[in-house]
């Protein structure tokens, strides 16, 4: 009887442990970054790499592979041509909607396999801390009164930064000239050097120069303020930055940070990665990173994610169309 119980227990143990025998990567997993080194995507990829490694979430190592050429189109084409390769994960952002529209890149995110949306990134309007205008109203008034139009710097051309600039013009009537730079980091140092009047960088891109007291955040392009209340500079937290709407500038934009596998992968493989990123989103490394970079936590998979992507795609498309950035 006792022996029987033992066998039953062993059998149960085997049954219970079968999920662990499900699909698992057999080669190092490559996180594909569609941007240059040091940018927001790269930093996030390295955070994920560290979180997976420190918490032993996967047996195989993770490597970050930078494919930022052609404004990130390189990464999209690379993923597209890797059908069925479950060892590559793309860390995607709004370029998956915008690049095919503006530059006619032969790519559609529906050809890849969505895994999870892991964060939303904010946009903040920044000016140089040495300038006299301390809020959105003073800034816009100065822009309108200026004899030569204010210079707005941003990442790339006909992308989120320029879209925001166009909508700021539409809502306020002020005129800006938009200067495209290769990266947000470059836009940040150009603002510090007073070569441009403002930028709409993500919080992470301007964090260091804000802490150094060289730039000033004017407003955040979201419906609500950023939730993080611990002090970033000596006097201010992310939460102290007003929303643009509060300041009378009704423009909102959030950018997804999502993980995709190439097309034609099996459901078991997708399940493995969904589980992996779920676990990543629960690690202290992830939480710490979200707060430091002022990212909005979110976790969507499966149907929720597809629904979100479709809506987000439609919204980006209408913004791009209204801004006149869709290539004919």
């Amino acid at each position, binding site marked *: 009887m006792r022996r029987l119980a033992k066998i039953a227990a062993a059998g149960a143990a085997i049954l219970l442990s079968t999920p662990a025998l499900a699909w698992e990567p057999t080669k190092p997993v490559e996180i594909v970054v569609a941007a240059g*080194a040091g940018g927001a995507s790269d930093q996030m990829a390295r955070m994920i790499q560290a979180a997976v490694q420190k918490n032993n979430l996967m047996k195989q190592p993770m490597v970050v592979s930078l494919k930022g*050429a052609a404004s990130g189109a390189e990464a999209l084409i690379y993923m597209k041509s890797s059908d069925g390769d479950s060892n590559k994960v793309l860390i995607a952002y709004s370029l998956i909607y915008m690049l095919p529209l503006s*530059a006619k*890149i032969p790519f559609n995110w529906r050809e890849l396999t969505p895994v999870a949306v892991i964060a939303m990134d904010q946009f903040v309007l920044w000016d140089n801390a040495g300038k006299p205008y301390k809020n959105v109203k003073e800034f816009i008034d100065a822009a309108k009164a200026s004899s030569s139009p204010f210079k707005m710097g941003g990442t*790339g051309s006909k992308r989120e930064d320029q879209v925001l600039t166009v909508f700021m013009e539409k809502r306020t009537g002020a005129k800006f*000239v938009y*200067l*495209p730079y290769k990266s947000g980091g470059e836009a940040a140092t150009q603002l510090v050097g007073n070569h441009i009047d403002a930028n709409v960088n993500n919080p992470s891109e301007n964090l260091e120069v804000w802490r150094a007291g060289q730039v000033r955040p004017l407003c955040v392009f979201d419906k609500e303020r950023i939730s993080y209340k611990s002090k970033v500079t000596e006097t201010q937290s992310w939460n102290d930055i007003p929303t643009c709407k509060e300041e009378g500038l009704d423009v909102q934009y959030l950018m997804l940070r999502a993980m995709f596998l190439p097309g034609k992968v099996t459901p078991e493989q997708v399940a493995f990665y969904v589980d992996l990123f779920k676990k990543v989103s629960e690690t202290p490394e992830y939480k710490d990173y979200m707060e430091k970079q002022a990212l909005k936590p979110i976790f969507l998979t499966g149907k929720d994610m597809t629904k979100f992507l479709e809506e987000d795609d439609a919204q980006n498309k209408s913004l791009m169309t209204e801004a006149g950035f869709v290539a004919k």
Partner: protein
Amino acid sequence: MEAFGLLLHGFTVLLTGKTLLLMMVGLVLGIFVGVLPGLGGPNGVAILLPLTFTMDPTSAIVMLSCIYWGALFGGAITSILFNIPGEAWSVATTFDGYPMAQQGRAAEALTAAFTSSFIGSLCAVLLITFLAPMISSFALRFGPPEFFAVYLLTFCSFVGLGREAKHKTIISMALGLLLTGIGMDTISGQLRMTFGSTDLLRGINFLVAVIGLFGISEILLTMEERLALRGHAAGISLRVILKVWMDLPKYWVTLLRSSFIGCWLGITPGGAIAASFMGYNLAKRFAKDQDSFGKGRIEGVFAPETAAHASGTAALLPMLALGIPGSGTAAILLGGLMVWGLNPGPLLFVEHKDFVWGLIASMYLGNVVGLVLVLTTVPIFASVLRVPFAAIAPMIVVSCAIGAYAIQNAMFDIWLMLLFGVVGYVFKKIGIPLAPFTLALVLGNRAEDAFRQAMIGSGGDLGVFWSNGLVGFITTLALALLFWPLIDKAFGRIGQMLRPAKA
């Protein structure tokens, strides 16, 4: 003494077992590529660059710069023992070095070469140490017009000061600029010249081009010339080293003069080769018995080697601080920095202090370690040259192919590299210099972006390039350098017209 504190910090970054090991590996690899004919500094660094992609930037650049030092040291070995300059700037070393080897004084010549290399580099590193902090405070004044003016200066100085025929330099540069247009354009966000090909989407990677242009083309040339390698055996004993070192103080004027020439020319682009010749020529001009030069005089080794290394090292300063490379190898290191997201330029000193001072500290350490290493391993490296060329050539081709593939994991790049190999071969045959082509590939995109950003900012007014003292000075200097041969001639005429009037 901010520089001193930062330098000490740089040493603490370096003094880990791992970094020191990388340094040794880099030096050995560097000497190896320096000794191999057809490789040399720029090619060696280009081929080995992808090896470092998995490292953190500081380790990677330390290793790369050690490959660079190694290659500089290695170039002297072939010049003296085999009369084959590994690098263009080692040519002057052969004038007296090879005769010394023929007279059985190879060890003495090698010691002289290594020691003077070390002294030249050290002088240049000292210069970098004390100039670098000043350059960083000047950093934030660089906006698009300033950046463009600096690139313009580089392009113009290649045309105006280069030794090659002007039209050939311009042809080479224009072809390079044309190729940088391929791919995504940052300013308009549109694709250019890709003809629907997804391989061309990435643009032409300059490393792929460089490996082909230098590495493959050199193999083709050597094959054609049926290069036979015959070398002299060499061993260095402590006695010889001490003897040469005891004699050093006698030549302090030569050493100092060559160091100065090297530092000065290194900061202006393309100066390293000119520096070694200038060092040699000046040493000869100021010597009492000029006839003994070219017949195995130790001073004839000291002078060019010191100058070449001072300029090779000083060339790193404009690369780091302004993003303009002073030599071919520096141009490749520049590309390497961009791979790691370190944008060379004034802001590098502000944004990546650890990296910059780590690199400067590695220049000191790398040179000391390198000197010891070459002195002890000369016989081994010299034996490399006794391996038949037929055995070495395939190895070089394979390493070139691996290098080209590894940059972007693309098979297309290997074909591109072979194509560039043929282009390089043809260029060498018809006397079109490769350096302006490489330079245009590295800086073309950035120059174009900077120009168009400046134009957007100014509303299309070219006056922006004279809108403040800094940018105005650089732009004017650039134009002056472009037309330097004409200006020089005009001054000569005026001089001629004045002289008879005086007489």
